[in-house]
């Protein structure tokens, strides 16, 4: 299967600070990819590198087989909605669509119009007066109507309230199906993504902690209650403890093992993602 994003030893430094370090990753096509990690994990840096907003300090990145933002044709293949969905405050909704139409050869005017209608946005409204959710929808419409092959959304719901989050994600899911594109969306909350994504990348401390299809990940991760005693002897040979957490209710371990773990239940996606992020925190 072809990859939408392929990186090798990708590193990005801002002055002395390393935002992304030696990141090797392969994101397959045709997926809705959730990129999750705590604040400052390097999510925005990775997505900005994917859009070619700046060049890597070291390593290599290829998006849809080309250099990010290398040519106008490459730009046309990738739609990007930046964090906080920036739009031109002084331009109206209709003018944003006109901007999209003038600047993108593959612009799908009817798709954009339909979507604006369905969302109930007033075309004459200045974008600066839209609510956060409406602004995110407008930015997404502009990014989607250029009809690229990959749509990248950086923290699309970070500024939305819980109800608007659900609505946005639900709408996105059906929209993506209609577009037939690969999607990468990031969030610091796995709960935002767990219902929509079918491929997960966990980023923490500037490095990839976990990457894989959701079904594969769920198949090999188990949650085990550890009631007193140790784990020794209870695990199959190939198993590895990702993270152990103590709470008032007892101690639970998230275990990665290709074979079944006796007495364990299936871990859900939030458990798994969180375990890898926590494990990274502990290491630090």
């Amino acid at each position: 299967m072809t990859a939408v994003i392929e990186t090798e030893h990708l590193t990005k430094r801002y002055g002395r600070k390393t935002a992304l370090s030696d990141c090797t990753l392969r994101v397959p096509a045709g997926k809705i990819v959730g990129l999750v990690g705590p604040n400052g994990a390097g999510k925005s840096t990775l997505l900005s590198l994917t859009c070619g907003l700046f060049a890597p300090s070291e390593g290599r990145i290829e998006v849809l087989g080309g250099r990010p933002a290398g040519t106008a044709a490459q730009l046309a293949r990738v739609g990007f909605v930046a964090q906080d969905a920036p739009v031109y405050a002084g331009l109206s909704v209709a003018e944003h669509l006109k901007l999209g139409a003038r600047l993108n050869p593959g612009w799908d005017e009817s798709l954009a119009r339909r979507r604006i209608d369905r969302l109930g946005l007033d075309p004459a409204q200045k974008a600066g007066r839209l609510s956060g959710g409406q602004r995110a929808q407008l930015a997404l419409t502009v990014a989607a109507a250029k009809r690229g092959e990959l749509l990248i959304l950086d923290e699309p719901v970070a500024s939305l309230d819980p109800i608007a989050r659900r609505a946005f994600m639900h709408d996105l899911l059906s929209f993506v199906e209609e577009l037939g594109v690969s999607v990468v969306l990031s969030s610091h909350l796995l709960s935002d993504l767990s219902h929509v994504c079918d491929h997960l990348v966990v980023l923490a401390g500037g490095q990839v902690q976990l990457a894989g299809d959701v079904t594969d990940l769920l198949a090999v991760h188990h949650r085990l209650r550890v009631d007193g005693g140790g784990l020794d002897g209870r695990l199959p040979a190939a198993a590895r403890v990702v993270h152990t957490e103590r709470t008032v209710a007892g101690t639970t371990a998230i275990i990665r093992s290709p074979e079944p773990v006796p007495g364990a239940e299936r871990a859900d996606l939030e458990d798994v993602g969180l375990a890898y992020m926590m494990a990274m925190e502990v290491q630090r």
Partner: protein
Amino acid sequence: MIWLAWRQLRTQVLVAVVGLAVFAAYLVYLGFRIRHDYLADVVNCVPSDCASSRRLFADRYVAQVSLLGLLLLALPGIVGAFWGAPLVARELETKTDLLVWNQSVTRGRWLAVKLLVVGAAAVAVSGAFSLLLTWSVSRYDQWAGDRFAAMSFAARNVVPLGYAAFAFVLGVLVGLLVRRTVPAMAIVLAVFAALQVVVPTAVRSHLLPPVSSTVAFNGEAMQHAHGFGMSPETGASIVGYVMPGTWPMDSQFKVFNADGTPYTSTQSRQCMTGTPDKDFECMTQQNLHFSYTYQPGSRYWPFQWIELSAYTLLALLLAGVSFLWIRRRVS
């Protein structure tokens, strides 16, 4: 892309056009008035009254002409600060660069179109103002005969186009580097003001090597000078001599004898009788001369073109740096 550049510039251009229209109306009115008064007071003056009517003509317009010149001098700086500096800096500040640089237009092309569209507007506005002012006050300039003066050289004919192009691109580049609109505006104004002081005082007179010629110290020379001075340190010199239409490189020139030795106070005392006219006639007969260093009047246009080219070249250079920077570094 041109549509977007125009859409973002629309309001500013409308303001500039309205402002320019008001100015244009005033300049046309002023132009006709100066022409009328020039004919009446300078060309067709009553011979007995000519000296005073000519002076009155100049006095009547000196304030307007200087103020308009100052305004035109400031205009490129204003254009650079208000059109140039925000061009990229505002996009970076509002993060709309993340929106527009992810459309199917490369950053290089985006910058090129914006530089061309907005830059052309900036140059056009400054050029229109300059040509109008040049026409409007041409009779006054003719009377003043001082085309090389710092104020009138930089505020007439073609050089303001170069200043506008330069100040605009400077604004864009500084905005790109500083990434903040207001500090970028301040830097552009400061740099442009500094250049407008340094170039006329220290650079312009060296654009072409000055010419020297020997001028006889006589009544005709004194008509074009402020006076004659004698001091223990510098010796004898003619002060403020300007050969008509030329640009003197000094404010005073040493006076020499025919054999090339400096004119001394002993010699001048020989002519002191107490009657100024007779004294001067006596000095004239001493066969004195001075060496006048200047830029000839025929160099006015070469100087205009040289300065225009230099600023245009600088503008192109800064534009080149902007392109490199926006491709490699930004965001």
